[in-house]
Protein backbone atom coordinates (compact mmCIF):
# COMPACT_ATOMS: atom_id res chain seq x y z
CA UNK A 1 0.00 0.00 0.00
CA UNK A 2 2.77 2.36 0.95
CA UNK A 3 4.51 2.28 -2.40
CA UNK A 4 1.20 2.29 -4.24
CA UNK A 5 0.20 5.57 -2.63
CA UNK A 6 3.55 7.11 -3.18
CA UNK A 7 3.42 6.11 -6.81
CA UNK A 8 -0.01 7.58 -7.20
CA UNK A 9 1.02 10.90 -5.73
CA UNK A 10 4.18 11.01 -7.74
CA UNK A 11 2.07 10.32 -10.78
CA UNK A 12 -0.18 13.25 -10.04
CA UNK A 13 2.88 15.28 -9.41
CA UNK A 14 4.49 14.25 -12.68
CA UNK A 15 1.30 15.00 -14.55
CA UNK A 16 1.39 18.52 -13.21
CA UNK A 17 5.05 18.98 -13.94
CA UNK A 18 4.72 17.59 -17.43
CA UNK A 19 2.03 19.99 -18.52
CA UNK A 20 3.51 23.01 -20.21
CA UNK A 21 0.65 25.20 -19.18
CA UNK A 22 -0.93 24.20 -15.91
CA UNK A 23 -4.59 24.87 -15.68
CA UNK A 24 -7.07 24.87 -12.84
CA UNK A 25 -8.34 21.53 -14.05
CA UNK A 26 -4.88 20.00 -13.72
CA UNK A 27 -4.91 21.06 -10.11
CA UNK A 28 -8.36 19.58 -9.65
CA UNK A 29 -7.07 16.27 -11.03
CA UNK A 30 -4.19 16.22 -8.59
CA UNK A 31 -6.55 17.01 -5.75
CA UNK A 32 -8.65 14.01 -6.71
CA UNK A 33 -5.62 11.74 -6.44
CA UNK A 34 -4.62 13.25 -3.15
CA UNK A 35 -8.13 12.83 -1.83
CA UNK A 36 -8.04 9.15 -2.66
CA UNK A 37 -4.64 8.83 -0.99
CA UNK A 38 -5.93 10.46 2.18
CA UNK A 39 -8.97 8.19 2.28
CA UNK A 40 -6.79 5.16 1.79
CA UNK A 41 -4.69 6.40 4.69
CA UNK A 42 -7.89 6.24 6.80
CA UNK A 43 -8.31 9.99 7.10
CA UNK A 44 -11.96 10.65 7.84
CA UNK A 45 -14.20 11.34 4.85
CA UNK A 46 -15.34 14.79 6.05
CA UNK A 47 -11.90 15.78 7.30
CA UNK A 48 -10.55 14.89 3.86
CA UNK A 49 -13.13 17.06 2.13
CA UNK A 50 -12.39 20.05 4.36
CA UNK A 51 -8.69 19.58 3.91
CA UNK A 52 -8.94 19.54 0.13
CA UNK A 53 -11.05 22.66 0.22
CA UNK A 54 -8.62 24.49 2.47
CA UNK A 55 -5.63 23.53 0.37
CA UNK A 56 -7.34 24.45 -2.88
CA UNK A 57 -8.09 27.89 -1.46
CA UNK A 58 -4.56 28.42 -0.20
CA UNK A 59 -3.21 27.25 -3.53
CA UNK A 60 -5.34 29.79 -5.36
CA UNK A 61 -4.45 32.54 -2.91
CA UNK A 62 -0.75 31.94 -3.32
CA UNK A 63 -1.16 31.85 -7.05
CA UNK A 64 0.45 28.45 -7.29
CA UNK A 65 -0.12 28.34 -11.03
CA UNK A 66 2.51 30.99 -11.56
CA UNK A 67 5.24 29.32 -9.52
CA UNK A 68 8.04 27.38 -11.18
CA UNK A 69 6.93 24.10 -9.72
CA UNK A 70 3.22 24.08 -8.95
CA UNK A 71 3.05 20.36 -8.12
CA UNK A 72 5.69 20.57 -5.45
CA UNK A 73 4.11 23.72 -4.15
CA UNK A 74 0.76 22.00 -3.65
CA UNK A 75 2.41 19.10 -1.91
CA UNK A 76 4.13 21.54 0.39
CA UNK A 77 0.89 23.37 1.16
CA UNK A 78 -0.71 20.01 1.94
CA UNK A 79 2.07 19.01 4.23
CA UNK A 80 1.97 22.31 6.10
CA UNK A 81 -1.79 22.12 6.46
CA UNK A 82 -1.51 18.61 7.93
CA UNK A 83 1.17 19.70 10.37
CA UNK A 84 -1.08 22.54 11.44
CA UNK A 85 -3.99 20.15 11.93
CA UNK A 86 -1.83 17.71 13.85
CA UNK A 87 -0.95 20.44 16.28
CA UNK A 88 2.34 22.19 15.61
CA UNK A 89 5.18 21.27 17.96
CA UNK A 90 5.49 18.52 20.56
CA UNK A 91 3.36 18.79 23.72
CA UNK A 92 4.51 17.88 27.20
CA UNK A 93 2.68 15.69 29.67
CA UNK A 94 0.85 17.71 32.33
CA UNK A 95 2.35 16.56 35.61
CA UNK A 96 0.81 19.18 37.85
CA UNK A 97 -0.94 17.96 41.04
CA UNK A 98 -2.66 15.60 41.60
CA UNK A 99 -0.28 13.94 39.09
CA UNK A 100 -2.81 11.40 37.93
CA UNK A 101 -3.02 9.95 34.44
CA UNK A 102 -6.11 8.05 33.31
CA UNK A 103 -5.75 5.71 30.32
CA UNK A 104 -8.87 5.06 28.24
CA UNK A 105 -9.72 3.51 24.89
CA UNK A 106 -11.21 0.71 22.80
CA UNK A 107 -10.49 -2.97 23.50
CA UNK A 108 -6.97 -4.00 22.62
CA UNK A 109 -5.78 -0.50 21.67
CA UNK A 110 -2.69 -0.77 23.87
CA UNK A 111 -3.69 0.89 27.16
CA UNK A 112 -1.97 -1.54 29.51
CA UNK A 113 1.23 -1.64 27.47
CA UNK A 114 1.25 2.15 27.15
CA UNK A 115 0.69 2.52 30.90
CA UNK A 116 3.86 0.53 31.50
CA UNK A 117 5.68 2.50 28.80
CA UNK A 118 4.70 5.77 30.46
CA UNK A 119 5.88 4.45 33.81
CA UNK A 120 9.22 3.56 32.27
CA UNK A 121 9.48 6.98 30.60
CA UNK A 122 8.63 8.81 33.83
CA UNK A 123 11.20 6.79 35.70
CA UNK A 124 13.85 7.89 33.25
CA UNK A 125 12.78 11.50 33.93
CA UNK A 126 13.57 10.92 37.60
CA UNK A 127 9.89 10.77 38.58
CA UNK A 128 8.23 8.14 40.76
CA UNK A 129 5.57 6.36 38.70
CA UNK A 130 2.84 4.21 40.25
CA UNK A 131 0.65 1.81 38.31
CA UNK A 132 -2.99 1.20 39.19
CA UNK A 133 -4.90 -1.76 37.80
CA UNK A 134 -8.57 -0.98 37.23
CA UNK A 135 -9.38 -3.54 34.54
CA UNK A 136 -11.41 -6.06 36.49
CA UNK A 137 -12.93 -7.59 33.41
CA UNK A 138 -10.42 -8.93 30.93
CA UNK A 139 -8.95 -12.24 32.08
CA UNK A 140 -5.49 -11.70 33.61
CA UNK A 141 -5.49 -7.95 32.90
CA UNK A 142 -4.32 -7.31 36.44
CA UNK A 143 -1.57 -9.91 36.17
CA UNK A 144 -0.46 -8.29 32.90
CA UNK A 145 0.07 -4.95 34.64
CA UNK A 146 1.69 -6.65 37.62
CA UNK A 147 4.20 -8.45 35.43
CA UNK A 148 5.06 -5.21 33.62
CA UNK A 149 5.35 -3.30 36.89
CA UNK A 150 7.65 -5.96 38.29
CA UNK A 151 9.89 -5.78 35.22
CA UNK A 152 10.17 -2.03 35.69
CA UNK A 153 10.44 -2.05 39.48
CA UNK A 154 7.32 0.12 39.71
CA UNK A 155 4.73 -0.38 42.49
CA UNK A 156 1.40 -1.74 41.21
CA UNK A 157 -1.89 -1.28 43.02
CA UNK A 158 -4.17 -4.28 42.56
CA UNK A 159 -7.87 -4.27 43.45
CA UNK A 160 -9.05 -6.18 46.52
CA UNK A 161 -9.54 -9.89 45.75
CA UNK A 162 -12.95 -10.63 44.30
CA UNK A 163 -13.78 -6.97 43.60
CA UNK A 164 -15.83 -6.62 40.42
CA UNK A 165 -16.91 -2.99 40.66
CA UNK A 166 -14.32 -0.63 39.14
CA UNK A 167 -15.76 2.33 41.05
CA UNK A 168 -15.12 0.59 44.37
CA UNK A 169 -11.71 -0.49 43.14
CA UNK A 170 -10.96 3.15 42.32
CA UNK A 171 -11.82 4.22 45.87
CA UNK A 172 -9.51 1.54 47.25
CA UNK A 173 -6.78 2.65 44.85
CA UNK A 174 -7.05 6.29 45.95
CA UNK A 175 -6.59 5.15 49.55
CA UNK A 176 -3.55 3.14 48.49
CA UNK A 177 -2.19 6.22 46.72
CA UNK A 178 -2.46 8.29 49.90
CA UNK A 179 -0.21 5.80 51.61
CA UNK A 180 2.40 5.97 48.85
CA UNK A 181 3.65 9.42 49.76
CA UNK A 182 3.58 10.95 46.30
CA UNK A 183 4.33 9.95 42.77
CA UNK A 184 2.75 10.02 39.32
CA UNK A 185 -0.18 7.61 39.28
CA UNK A 186 -1.15 5.87 36.03
CA UNK A 187 -4.63 4.32 36.02
CA UNK A 188 -5.10 1.48 33.53
CA UNK A 189 -8.78 0.97 32.73
CA UNK A 190 -10.61 -1.82 30.90
CA UNK A 191 -11.11 -1.57 27.15
CA UNK A 192 -14.60 -0.69 25.94
CA UNK A 193 -16.48 0.11 22.76
CA UNK A 194 -17.71 3.67 22.40
CA UNK A 195 -21.26 2.46 21.73
CA UNK A 196 -21.48 0.68 25.09
CA UNK A 197 -23.30 3.24 27.24
CA UNK A 198 -23.16 1.18 30.41
CA UNK A 199 -19.38 0.82 30.30
CA UNK A 200 -18.96 4.48 29.40
CA UNK A 201 -21.03 5.61 32.37
CA UNK A 202 -18.84 3.44 34.55
CA UNK A 203 -15.74 5.07 33.10
CA UNK A 204 -17.18 8.50 33.84
CA UNK A 205 -17.72 7.52 37.46
CA UNK A 206 -14.12 6.38 37.71
CA UNK A 207 -12.95 9.60 36.14
CA UNK A 208 -14.99 11.74 38.52
CA UNK A 209 -13.35 9.98 41.46
CA UNK A 210 -9.81 10.11 40.09
CA UNK A 211 -9.96 13.76 38.92
CA UNK A 212 -7.00 13.14 36.61
CA UNK A 213 -4.59 15.79 35.43
CA UNK A 214 -4.29 13.88 32.15
CA UNK A 215 -6.90 11.70 30.47
CA UNK A 216 -5.27 9.98 27.52
CA UNK A 217 -7.14 8.25 24.72
CA UNK A 218 -5.05 5.35 23.47
CA UNK A 219 -5.80 4.49 19.83
CA UNK A 220 -4.48 1.93 17.38
CA UNK A 221 -2.71 3.32 14.30
CA UNK A 222 -4.84 1.08 12.07
CA UNK A 223 -8.16 2.59 13.20
CA UNK A 224 -10.47 3.22 10.26
CA UNK A 225 -13.36 5.58 9.63
CA UNK A 226 -14.79 5.07 13.13
CA UNK A 227 -12.09 7.30 14.59
CA UNK A 228 -14.34 10.36 14.72
CA UNK A 229 -17.14 8.56 16.55
CA UNK A 230 -14.71 6.92 18.97
CA UNK A 231 -12.79 10.07 19.85
CA UNK A 232 -15.83 12.29 20.18
CA UNK A 233 -17.69 9.81 22.38
CA UNK A 234 -14.75 9.32 24.74
CA UNK A 235 -14.19 13.06 24.81
CA UNK A 236 -17.84 13.76 25.64
CA UNK A 237 -17.79 11.18 28.40
CA UNK A 238 -14.50 11.80 30.19
CA UNK A 239 -13.06 15.02 28.65
CA UNK A 240 -9.80 13.94 27.09
CA UNK A 241 -6.58 15.91 27.53
CA UNK A 242 -4.37 14.06 25.09
CA UNK A 243 -4.01 11.30 22.53
CA UNK A 244 -1.58 8.41 22.21
CA UNK A 245 -1.32 6.48 18.96
CA UNK A 246 0.05 2.93 19.23
CA UNK A 247 1.46 0.34 16.83
CA UNK A 248 3.04 2.90 14.54
CA UNK A 249 5.87 0.40 14.06
CA UNK A 250 3.62 -1.28 11.47
CA UNK A 251 2.64 0.07 8.07
CA UNK A 252 -0.75 1.56 8.96
CA UNK A 253 -0.64 5.16 7.85
CA UNK A 254 -2.44 6.49 10.91
CA UNK A 255 -4.79 8.90 9.15
CA UNK A 256 -7.25 8.33 12.00
CA UNK A 257 -5.06 10.54 14.14
CA UNK A 258 -6.04 13.57 12.05
CA UNK A 259 -9.70 12.92 12.70
CA UNK A 260 -9.15 12.35 16.41
CA UNK A 261 -7.09 15.50 16.68
CA UNK A 262 -9.73 17.47 14.79
CA UNK A 263 -12.71 16.26 16.72
CA UNK A 264 -11.22 16.51 20.23
CA UNK A 265 -8.81 19.41 19.83
CA UNK A 266 -6.47 17.39 22.08
CA UNK A 267 -2.74 17.28 21.43
CA UNK A 268 -0.98 14.03 20.60
CA UNK A 269 1.35 13.35 23.51
CA UNK A 270 3.11 10.11 22.58
CA UNK A 271 3.32 7.40 19.99
CA UNK A 272 3.91 3.68 20.51
CA UNK A 273 6.41 2.05 18.19
CA UNK A 274 6.74 -1.50 19.49
CA UNK A 275 5.68 -4.03 22.09
CA UNK A 276 8.57 -3.38 24.47
CA UNK A 277 8.25 -0.91 27.34
CA UNK A 278 10.91 1.42 26.03
CA UNK A 279 9.24 1.74 22.61
CA UNK A 280 7.44 4.99 23.32
CA UNK A 281 8.29 8.19 21.48
CA UNK A 282 7.48 11.86 21.62
CA UNK A 283 5.14 12.90 18.83
CA UNK A 284 6.44 14.84 15.82
CA UNK A 285 3.63 16.34 13.74
CA UNK A 286 5.83 16.83 10.67
CA UNK A 287 6.89 13.17 10.58
CA UNK A 288 3.29 12.08 11.03
CA UNK A 289 2.11 14.37 8.22
CA UNK A 290 4.70 12.84 5.93
CA UNK A 291 3.63 9.37 6.93
CA UNK A 292 -0.04 10.07 6.26
CA UNK A 293 0.77 11.56 2.89
CA UNK A 294 3.28 8.80 2.15
CA UNK A 295 5.64 11.32 0.66
CA UNK A 296 8.46 11.92 3.07
CA UNK A 297 11.07 12.34 0.38
CA UNK A 298 9.12 14.83 -1.65
CA UNK A 299 8.57 17.12 1.29
CA UNK A 300 12.22 17.13 2.24
CA UNK A 301 12.97 17.92 -1.37
CA UNK A 302 10.63 20.88 -1.44
CA UNK A 303 12.05 22.23 1.80
CA UNK A 304 15.56 22.11 0.38
CA UNK A 305 14.49 23.87 -2.78
Amino acid sequence: MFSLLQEKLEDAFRKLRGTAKISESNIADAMKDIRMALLEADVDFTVTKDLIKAVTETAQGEDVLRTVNPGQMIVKIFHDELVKLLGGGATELDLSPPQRILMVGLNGAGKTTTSAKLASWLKKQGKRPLLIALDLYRPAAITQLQVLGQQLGVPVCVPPAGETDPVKATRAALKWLDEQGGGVAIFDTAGRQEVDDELLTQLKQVRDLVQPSETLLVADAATGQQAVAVASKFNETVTLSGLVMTKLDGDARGGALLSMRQVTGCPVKFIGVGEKVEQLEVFHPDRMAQRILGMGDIVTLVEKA
Partner: protein
Amino acid sequence: MAGFFKSLIQRFTKPDIDWDDLEASLIAGDLGPKLALQIVSDLQAQQRKLHGADIVQVARDHVRKILPESVPHLTPFADGRPKVLLIVGVNGVGKTTSTAKLAHLLQHAGHKVVLAAADTFRAAAVEQLQVWSQRLDAPLVKGPPNSDPAAVCFEGYEMAVKTGASFLLCDTAGRLHTKHNLMEEMKKIHRVLGRKDPTSPHEIILVVDATTGSNALQQAREFHKAIPLTGLIVTKLDGSGKGGVLVPIQQELKVPTRFIGLGEKVEDFQAFDSKRFVDELL
Protein backbone atom coordinates in the same frame (compact mmCIF):
# COMPACT_ATOMS: atom_id res chain seq x y z
CA MET B 1 -20.33 2.51 9.85
CA ALA B 2 -23.65 1.31 11.22
CA GLY B 3 -26.17 1.15 8.39
CA PHE B 4 -23.50 2.37 6.04
CA PHE B 5 -25.52 1.68 2.92
CA LYS B 6 -28.51 3.46 4.37
CA SER B 7 -26.43 6.56 4.93
CA LEU B 8 -25.72 6.58 1.20
CA ILE B 9 -29.44 6.77 0.45
CA GLN B 10 -29.65 9.89 2.53
CA ARG B 11 -26.59 11.52 1.07
CA PHE B 12 -27.23 10.91 -2.60
CA THR B 13 -30.81 12.09 -2.96
CA LYS B 14 -30.47 14.08 -6.16
CA PRO B 15 -30.46 12.27 -9.50
CA ASP B 16 -27.27 14.02 -10.63
CA ILE B 17 -24.76 12.09 -8.62
CA ASP B 18 -21.32 13.47 -7.79
CA TRP B 19 -19.38 10.40 -8.87
CA ASP B 20 -16.17 11.34 -7.11
CA ASP B 21 -18.07 11.88 -3.93
CA LEU B 22 -19.77 8.51 -4.25
CA GLU B 23 -16.53 6.73 -4.98
CA ALA B 24 -14.91 8.38 -1.99
CA SER B 25 -17.76 7.43 0.33
CA LEU B 26 -17.63 3.82 -0.79
CA ILE B 27 -13.94 3.78 0.00
CA ALA B 28 -14.69 5.45 3.31
CA GLY B 29 -16.97 2.50 4.07
CA ASP B 30 -13.90 0.25 4.01
CA LEU B 31 -15.09 -1.50 0.84
CA GLY B 32 -11.76 -0.70 -0.77
CA PRO B 33 -10.88 1.28 -3.90
CA LYS B 34 -11.21 -1.60 -6.35
CA LEU B 35 -14.77 -2.50 -5.44
CA ALA B 36 -15.72 1.17 -5.11
CA LEU B 37 -14.61 1.79 -8.69
CA GLN B 38 -16.52 -1.25 -9.94
CA ILE B 39 -19.71 -0.10 -8.25
CA VAL B 40 -19.34 3.41 -9.61
CA SER B 41 -18.69 2.32 -13.18
CA ASP B 42 -21.60 -0.10 -13.00
CA LEU B 43 -23.86 2.75 -11.94
CA GLN B 44 -22.47 5.08 -14.58
CA ALA B 45 -23.22 2.50 -17.25
CA GLN B 46 -26.91 2.54 -16.39
CA GLN B 47 -28.56 4.91 -18.84
CA ARG B 48 -31.19 6.31 -16.52
CA LYS B 49 -31.77 8.64 -13.64
CA LEU B 50 -30.38 7.19 -10.45
CA HIS B 51 -31.43 7.62 -6.87
CA GLY B 52 -29.89 6.75 -3.53
CA ALA B 53 -31.82 3.50 -3.41
CA ASP B 54 -30.36 2.43 -6.78
CA ILE B 55 -26.87 3.00 -5.46
CA VAL B 56 -27.53 0.81 -2.47
CA GLN B 57 -29.10 -1.84 -4.66
CA VAL B 58 -26.10 -1.99 -6.99
CA ALA B 59 -23.62 -1.89 -4.11
CA ARG B 60 -25.41 -4.71 -2.30
CA ASP B 61 -25.54 -6.81 -5.47
CA HIS B 62 -21.82 -6.40 -5.93
CA VAL B 63 -21.09 -7.44 -2.36
CA ARG B 64 -23.48 -10.39 -2.65
CA LYS B 65 -21.67 -11.62 -5.74
CA ILE B 66 -18.33 -11.49 -3.95
CA LEU B 67 -19.29 -13.20 -0.71
CA PRO B 68 -19.88 -16.96 -0.85
CA GLU B 69 -23.37 -17.99 0.17
CA SER B 70 -22.12 -20.45 2.73
CA VAL B 71 -18.79 -21.34 4.28
CA PRO B 72 -17.47 -24.71 5.45
CA HIS B 73 -18.31 -25.81 8.99
CA LEU B 74 -15.78 -26.96 11.52
CA THR B 75 -16.19 -30.70 11.69
CA PRO B 76 -13.92 -33.21 13.42
CA PHE B 77 -11.96 -35.85 11.48
CA ALA B 78 -13.70 -39.20 11.23
CA ASP B 79 -10.45 -41.09 11.89
CA GLY B 80 -10.01 -39.52 15.33
CA ARG B 81 -6.95 -37.39 14.46
CA PRO B 82 -7.11 -33.99 16.14
CA LYS B 83 -8.03 -31.13 13.83
CA VAL B 84 -5.56 -28.31 14.39
CA LEU B 85 -6.60 -24.66 14.28
CA LEU B 86 -3.93 -21.97 14.26
CA ILE B 87 -5.18 -18.54 15.32
CA VAL B 88 -3.06 -15.63 14.04
CA GLY B 89 -3.21 -11.86 13.67
CA VAL B 90 -1.73 -8.49 14.58
CA ASN B 91 -1.61 -7.19 18.16
CA GLY B 92 -4.76 -6.78 20.20
CA VAL B 93 -7.33 -7.80 17.57
CA GLY B 94 -8.92 -10.48 19.77
CA LYS B 95 -7.04 -13.73 19.08
CA THR B 96 -7.03 -15.06 22.63
CA THR B 97 -10.67 -14.17 23.23
CA SER B 98 -11.67 -15.69 19.87
CA THR B 99 -9.73 -18.86 20.69
CA ALA B 100 -11.79 -19.19 23.87
CA LYS B 101 -14.99 -18.45 21.96
CA LEU B 102 -14.19 -21.09 19.34
CA ALA B 103 -13.43 -23.62 22.05
CA HIS B 104 -16.75 -22.85 23.67
CA LEU B 105 -18.58 -23.23 20.36
CA LEU B 106 -16.91 -26.57 19.63
CA GLN B 107 -17.54 -27.86 23.14
CA HIS B 108 -21.14 -26.86 22.74
CA ALA B 109 -21.31 -29.03 19.63
CA GLY B 110 -20.08 -31.91 21.76
CA HIS B 111 -16.39 -31.91 20.85
CA LYS B 112 -13.39 -32.23 23.10
CA VAL B 113 -10.91 -29.37 22.79
CA VAL B 114 -7.29 -28.78 23.87
CA LEU B 115 -5.83 -25.26 24.05
CA ALA B 116 -2.20 -24.38 23.34
CA ALA B 117 -0.93 -21.08 24.78
CA ALA B 118 1.60 -20.29 22.07
CA ASP B 119 1.92 -16.61 22.99
CA THR B 120 4.95 -16.99 25.19
CA PHE B 121 5.93 -13.35 24.72
CA ARG B 122 3.31 -10.88 25.94
CA ALA B 123 2.99 -10.23 29.66
CA ALA B 124 0.35 -12.57 31.17
CA ALA B 125 -0.80 -13.86 27.78
CA VAL B 126 -0.55 -17.43 29.09
CA GLU B 127 -2.43 -16.51 32.26
CA GLN B 128 -5.16 -14.93 30.13
CA LEU B 129 -5.76 -18.16 28.17
CA GLN B 130 -5.39 -20.13 31.39
CA VAL B 131 -8.32 -18.25 32.92
CA TRP B 132 -10.39 -19.16 29.87
CA SER B 133 -9.26 -22.80 30.01
CA GLN B 134 -10.43 -22.98 33.61
CA ARG B 135 -13.75 -21.34 32.85
CA LEU B 136 -14.30 -23.67 29.89
CA ASP B 137 -12.80 -26.68 31.58
CA ALA B 138 -10.55 -27.35 28.58
CA PRO B 139 -7.00 -28.67 29.06
CA LEU B 140 -4.22 -26.14 28.40
CA VAL B 141 -0.65 -26.68 27.27
CA LYS B 142 1.86 -23.93 28.01
CA GLY B 143 5.58 -23.27 28.10
CA PRO B 144 7.88 -21.04 30.13
CA PRO B 145 8.03 -17.28 29.28
CA ASN B 146 9.81 -16.58 25.98
CA SER B 147 10.04 -20.26 25.12
CA ASP B 148 9.57 -21.55 21.57
CA PRO B 149 5.89 -21.23 20.60
CA ALA B 150 6.28 -24.01 18.02
CA ALA B 151 7.25 -26.40 20.82
CA VAL B 152 4.12 -25.46 22.76
CA CYS B 153 1.93 -26.28 19.74
CA PHE B 154 3.82 -29.55 19.23
CA GLU B 155 3.14 -30.54 22.83
CA GLY B 156 -0.44 -29.41 22.40
CA TYR B 157 -0.79 -31.92 19.57
CA GLU B 158 0.52 -34.71 21.74
CA MET B 159 -1.85 -33.74 24.53
CA ALA B 160 -4.78 -33.70 22.08
CA VAL B 161 -3.87 -37.21 20.90
CA LYS B 162 -3.40 -38.46 24.44
CA THR B 163 -6.70 -37.11 25.71
CA GLY B 164 -8.60 -38.06 22.57
CA ALA B 165 -9.58 -34.47 21.78
CA SER B 166 -11.01 -33.75 18.35
CA PHE B 167 -9.67 -30.20 18.18
CA LEU B 168 -6.43 -28.42 19.08
CA LEU B 169 -6.68 -24.64 19.20
CA CYS B 170 -3.38 -22.77 19.11
CA ASP B 171 -3.47 -19.14 20.29
CA THR B 172 -0.44 -17.26 18.99
CA ALA B 173 1.21 -13.95 19.91
CA GLY B 174 0.17 -10.75 18.19
CA ARG B 175 2.54 -9.85 15.38
CA LEU B 176 2.55 -6.98 12.92
CA HIS B 177 2.75 -8.31 9.38
CA THR B 178 5.71 -6.02 8.74
CA LYS B 179 7.94 -7.77 11.29
CA HIS B 180 10.04 -10.26 9.39
CA ASN B 181 11.35 -12.25 12.38
CA LEU B 182 7.87 -12.64 13.89
CA MET B 183 6.43 -13.79 10.58
CA GLU B 184 9.26 -16.33 10.34
CA GLU B 185 8.43 -17.51 13.85
CA MET B 186 4.86 -18.09 12.72
CA LYS B 187 6.02 -20.06 9.67
CA LYS B 188 8.05 -22.23 12.00
CA ILE B 189 4.97 -23.01 14.09
CA HIS B 190 3.27 -23.98 10.84
CA ARG B 191 6.18 -26.24 9.85
CA VAL B 192 6.53 -27.91 13.21
CA LEU B 193 2.83 -28.74 13.39
CA GLY B 194 3.22 -30.38 9.99
CA ARG B 195 5.68 -32.86 11.45
CA LYS B 196 2.93 -34.52 13.46
CA ASP B 197 0.43 -34.58 10.64
CA PRO B 198 1.50 -33.31 7.22
CA THR B 199 -1.89 -31.72 6.66
CA SER B 200 -1.74 -29.82 9.98
CA PRO B 201 -2.57 -27.04 10.79
CA HIS B 202 -5.88 -27.78 9.11
CA GLU B 203 -7.30 -24.34 9.60
CA ILE B 204 -5.33 -21.12 9.73
CA ILE B 205 -7.59 -18.36 10.91
CA LEU B 206 -6.68 -14.69 10.73
CA VAL B 207 -8.37 -12.52 13.31
CA VAL B 208 -9.27 -9.05 12.06
CA ASP B 209 -10.60 -6.17 14.16
CA ALA B 210 -13.67 -4.53 12.59
CA THR B 211 -12.42 -1.14 13.76
CA THR B 212 -9.40 -1.47 11.50
CA GLY B 213 -9.46 0.54 8.30
CA SER B 214 -7.58 -0.01 5.07
CA ASN B 215 -4.69 -1.71 6.83
CA ALA B 216 -6.76 -4.87 7.40
CA LEU B 217 -6.43 -5.83 3.74
CA GLN B 218 -2.69 -5.38 3.93
CA GLN B 219 -2.59 -7.54 7.08
CA ALA B 220 -4.53 -10.28 5.30
CA ARG B 221 -2.26 -10.10 2.23
CA GLU B 222 0.92 -10.48 4.24
CA PHE B 223 -0.33 -13.24 6.54
CA HIS B 224 -1.75 -15.12 3.56
CA LYS B 225 1.59 -14.82 1.79
CA ALA B 226 3.39 -16.27 4.82
CA ILE B 227 1.00 -19.15 5.58
CA PRO B 228 -2.16 -20.05 3.62
CA LEU B 229 -5.18 -18.69 5.49
CA THR B 230 -8.37 -20.72 5.46
CA GLY B 231 -10.64 -18.16 7.05
CA LEU B 232 -11.18 -14.95 8.96
CA ILE B 233 -12.71 -14.09 12.29
CA VAL B 234 -13.93 -10.51 12.34
CA THR B 235 -14.11 -9.21 15.92
CA LYS B 236 -15.63 -6.27 17.76
CA LEU B 237 -18.65 -6.04 15.50
CA ASP B 238 -20.52 -4.91 18.61
CA GLY B 239 -18.68 -1.60 18.18
CA SER B 240 -19.35 0.89 15.41
CA GLY B 241 -17.03 -0.77 12.89
CA LYS B 242 -19.06 -2.91 10.53
CA GLY B 243 -16.25 -4.89 8.99
CA GLY B 244 -16.65 -3.71 5.39
CA VAL B 245 -13.06 -4.75 4.81
CA LEU B 246 -13.97 -8.44 4.83
CA VAL B 247 -15.42 -7.82 1.36
CA PRO B 248 -12.17 -6.73 -0.37
CA ILE B 249 -10.33 -9.48 1.54
CA GLN B 250 -12.71 -12.08 0.09
CA GLN B 251 -12.54 -10.44 -3.33
CA GLU B 252 -8.77 -10.26 -3.57
CA LEU B 253 -7.56 -13.22 -1.51
CA LYS B 254 -10.59 -15.54 -1.59
CA VAL B 255 -10.32 -15.97 2.16
CA PRO B 256 -13.83 -16.31 3.57
CA THR B 257 -15.05 -14.90 6.85
CA ARG B 258 -15.99 -17.83 9.07
CA PHE B 259 -17.00 -16.30 12.39
CA ILE B 260 -17.76 -12.95 13.92
CA GLY B 261 -17.12 -11.61 17.41
CA LEU B 262 -19.81 -9.48 19.02
CA GLY B 263 -18.57 -8.82 22.53
CA GLU B 264 -16.15 -9.87 25.25
CA LYS B 265 -18.04 -12.90 26.52
CA VAL B 266 -17.60 -16.43 25.10
CA GLU B 267 -21.18 -16.51 23.88
CA ASP B 268 -20.70 -13.30 21.88
CA PHE B 269 -19.69 -15.27 18.82
CA GLN B 270 -21.47 -16.48 15.69
CA ALA B 271 -20.87 -18.27 12.43
CA PHE B 272 -20.71 -15.68 9.67
CA ASP B 273 -23.95 -15.27 7.74
CA SER B 274 -23.29 -13.37 4.52
CA LYS B 275 -26.96 -12.69 3.85
CA ARG B 276 -27.43 -11.06 7.23
CA PHE B 277 -24.20 -9.17 6.81
CA VAL B 278 -25.27 -7.65 3.49
CA ASP B 279 -28.89 -7.01 4.45
CA GLU B 280 -28.49 -5.71 7.96
CA LEU B 281 -24.99 -4.89 9.02
CA LEU B 282 -23.62 -3.19 5.95
